[in-house]
């Protein structure tokens, strides 16, 4: 890296990040009526972490991960605490432009921007990163993180997932990662520690699934903006506490259902969200959808459903089988568009649409995220065949396009409404 940004500018970036986080939080919390009380935990958590720079997690070595397919269970078993570094901050996105070409993905740029010095207080000491070789931009970002002084493990991911050689390659890669994680944290991955981490993550997933199941009900019990906040918190929250908070939310929503309280009107168009991941504070599109009167009831994104839906299944609770089981879970069900084929992603979308009685799909692609842009055609064709209208939105972290986007989103929601009326 040639030019090191000056300290003054860096501090300004951080201040801007805090400002935009506070603003986003205010929108999420105050512009929607009647939020569940259990959501307060999450609003406060985001405020503490994003605005005050507090650390949400217990003592231990933080290990940054840049992809949802990095096996958290192994980091935890080695005594580390995984933190997902994928950032949704426009301020960091701009700062990250020092590294990547202007037309690259906001998320990758923002992650690099975050890792420069003058970070949020709780991330100051983080210097160990696991970078997965998924899309080209993430792949190349690994080297840049090294240049920023991070100790990076380049976890190698295969470009396809269906073949047995790909599976074998990934298993070998994950076995290596066990050693790497131990080196990063100084801990040991043992039979007991891995078993406990698999079970802890499994409990969190069970809680997530209970929440997701409630979202299938009509009228909707939870707004998508809140659901994204919940799954987003999984990036950095204490695992057990997060699970407890989700269970509390589930309990409250069940009580609300009994009392006949819902989060949206029965006739609100139900939306399935897919594509590039909404990450706080960039919940621009979900907020626009719900301000326009739609309700996001399900998603197929790596900041939410893809991160938490699929579970590890162990056959023999010994180290050899647990490690392989973890490896399989992070490859086989993955619907990331980087793979050679996307049949599973299409089937997943159609299944979610069916089980959640979805009226339309919103497809977000970050400008520069080639793989999502490229899958747009096959996805919208499959959705059209299933009779599902799809709104394709190309955007980035900048707030500049909000005006224009809100018109498009409103028109889409309105068209879904009239489509519903006609079909009745």
């Amino acid at each position, binding site marked *: 890296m040639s030019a090191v940004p000056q300290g003054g500018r860096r501090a300004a970036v951080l201040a801007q990040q805090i400002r935009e986080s506070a603003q986003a939080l205010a929108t999420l919390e105050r512009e929607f009526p009647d939020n569940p009380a259990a959501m307060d935990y999450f609003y406060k958590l985001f405020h503490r972490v994003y605005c005050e720079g507090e650390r949400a997690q217990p003592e231990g070595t933080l290990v940054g991960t840049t992809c949802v397919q990095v096996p958290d269970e192994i980091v935890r078993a080695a005594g580390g605490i995984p933190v997902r570094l994928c950032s949704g901050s426009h301020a960091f996105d701009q700062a990250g432009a020092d590294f990547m070409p202007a037309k690259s993905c906001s998320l990758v740029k923002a992650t690099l921007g975050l890792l420069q010095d003058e970070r949020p207080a709780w991330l100051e000491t983080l210097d160990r990163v696991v970078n997965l070789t998924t899309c080209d931009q993430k792949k190349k970002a690994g080297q840049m993180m090294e240049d920023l002084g991070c100790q990076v493990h380049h976890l190698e991911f295969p470009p396809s997932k269906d073949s047995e050689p790909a599976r074998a390659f990934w298993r070998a890669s994950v076995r290596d990662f066990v050693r790497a994680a131990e080196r990063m944290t100084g801990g040991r991955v043992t039979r007991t520690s891995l078993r406990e981490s698999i079970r802890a993550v499994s409990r969190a997933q069970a809680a997530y699934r209970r929440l997701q199941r409630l979202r299938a009900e009509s009228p909707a019990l939870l707004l998508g903006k809140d659901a994204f906040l919940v799954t987003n918190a999984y990036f950095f929250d204490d695992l057990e506490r997060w699970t407890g908070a989700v269970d509390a939310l589930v309990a409250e929503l069940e009580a609300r259902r009994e009392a006949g309280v819902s989060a949206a009107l029965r006739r609100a168009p139900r939306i399935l969200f897919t594509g590039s991941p909404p990450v706080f504070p960039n919940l621009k599109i979900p907020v626009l959808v719900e301000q326009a009167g739609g309700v996001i009831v399900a998603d197929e994104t790596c900041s939410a459903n893809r991160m938490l*839906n699929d579970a590890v299944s162990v*056959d023999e609770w010994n180290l050899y089988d647990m490690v392989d089981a973890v490896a*399989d879970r992070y490859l086989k069900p993955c619907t990331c568009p980087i793979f050679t084929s996307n049949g599973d992603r299409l089937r997943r979308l159609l*299944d979610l649409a069916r089980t959640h009685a979805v009226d339309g799909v919103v497809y977000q692609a970050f400008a520069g995220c080639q793989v999502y842009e490229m899958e747009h055609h096959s996805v919208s064709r499959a959705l059209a065949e299933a009779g599902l209208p799809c709104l394709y939105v190309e955007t980035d972290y900048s707030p500049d396009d909000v005006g224009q986007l809100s018109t498009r989103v409103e028109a889409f929601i309105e068209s879904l409404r009239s489509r519903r009326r006609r079909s009745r």
Partner: protein
Amino acid sequence: MKRLRAFVNGVDIQRFRTWFQLFAFVLLVYSGYLYIDLGNSLPVFACGFNDAGRGGVCYLLPLQHQTHIPWESLFSWRALGLVTGFLTFFAWLLVLNKAWCGYVCPLGAIQDWMTALRRRLRLRYSVYSLESFTRLKKVKYILLVLLILIPFAISNPVEGLPHVPEDMATPFCTICPARMVIPAFTGDFSQWTLDFSTVTALVMTSLGMAILGIFFVGALVNKRFFCFFCPMSALQALFSNIALLKLRKDGDKCTRCGDCYRVCDMQIKAIADDVERKILIEDDCMMCLKCVAACPEEGCLKATFMGIPVYEATEEGFFRRQQRRGGE
């Protein structure tokens, strides 16, 4: 009813199966002492050489006797034995389908016990590569054809071809590890011998002893090692589509996470990858239903009996099992 169903779907199928297998083992290997006899057309390796304790006999033994008949007799009353034998076998199969292998077969149970031993020793299991798997799985059909053709050839010598010696009358039994393993459970080691009476007998019994050795080593290394080669499994597979117990898959619900495939003792990849077929019983399948237990998707995999679901994949059941079985 709903609660009963939730209870059943939450069951740890492995534990249930272990106890069921033990019960079936005692029934088939020891209940002869109580004069219990389930006949001689059982679709499992209830070895007939276990004279004292057997509670029934493996169908392959009478099948080899019944096909040891001259061509003309096939159209006489003598063929009646063949027909009734087969019909009885078929009736048994109709009920449990391939679950005979997963739940009843004593030789299968022994292999599962060896797997349990290996697991306690914390030794990694090995698997075949997909390529050798595809090649090896044909062996059982070849064995099935041979065990019918050889006895038949003894009774029907063809002019110009060498005679098949009479010692080959039950060719499969002589090389089957069950002939030595199962009687041993009643203290009968008389089968653990080499037969020096003729060259053929010596060759065959030596082969049998060698296979016995391979069986013990193989079953420690590979899950259900022998079952890949089992001609009974091949014979069952020919009719498994019409049996009443079925393994069904709803491909729309499948995320192809591969959890079912990875727990499958028989390495059946189609269970994870095939999202088209509604009924998914591959020829190697033993219907142990581990795949159903390992499936986190609500109602994606299920076992049905005459269309009624008996064991079904549920989210709740899956996550409960993952917590509980961690304690092993």
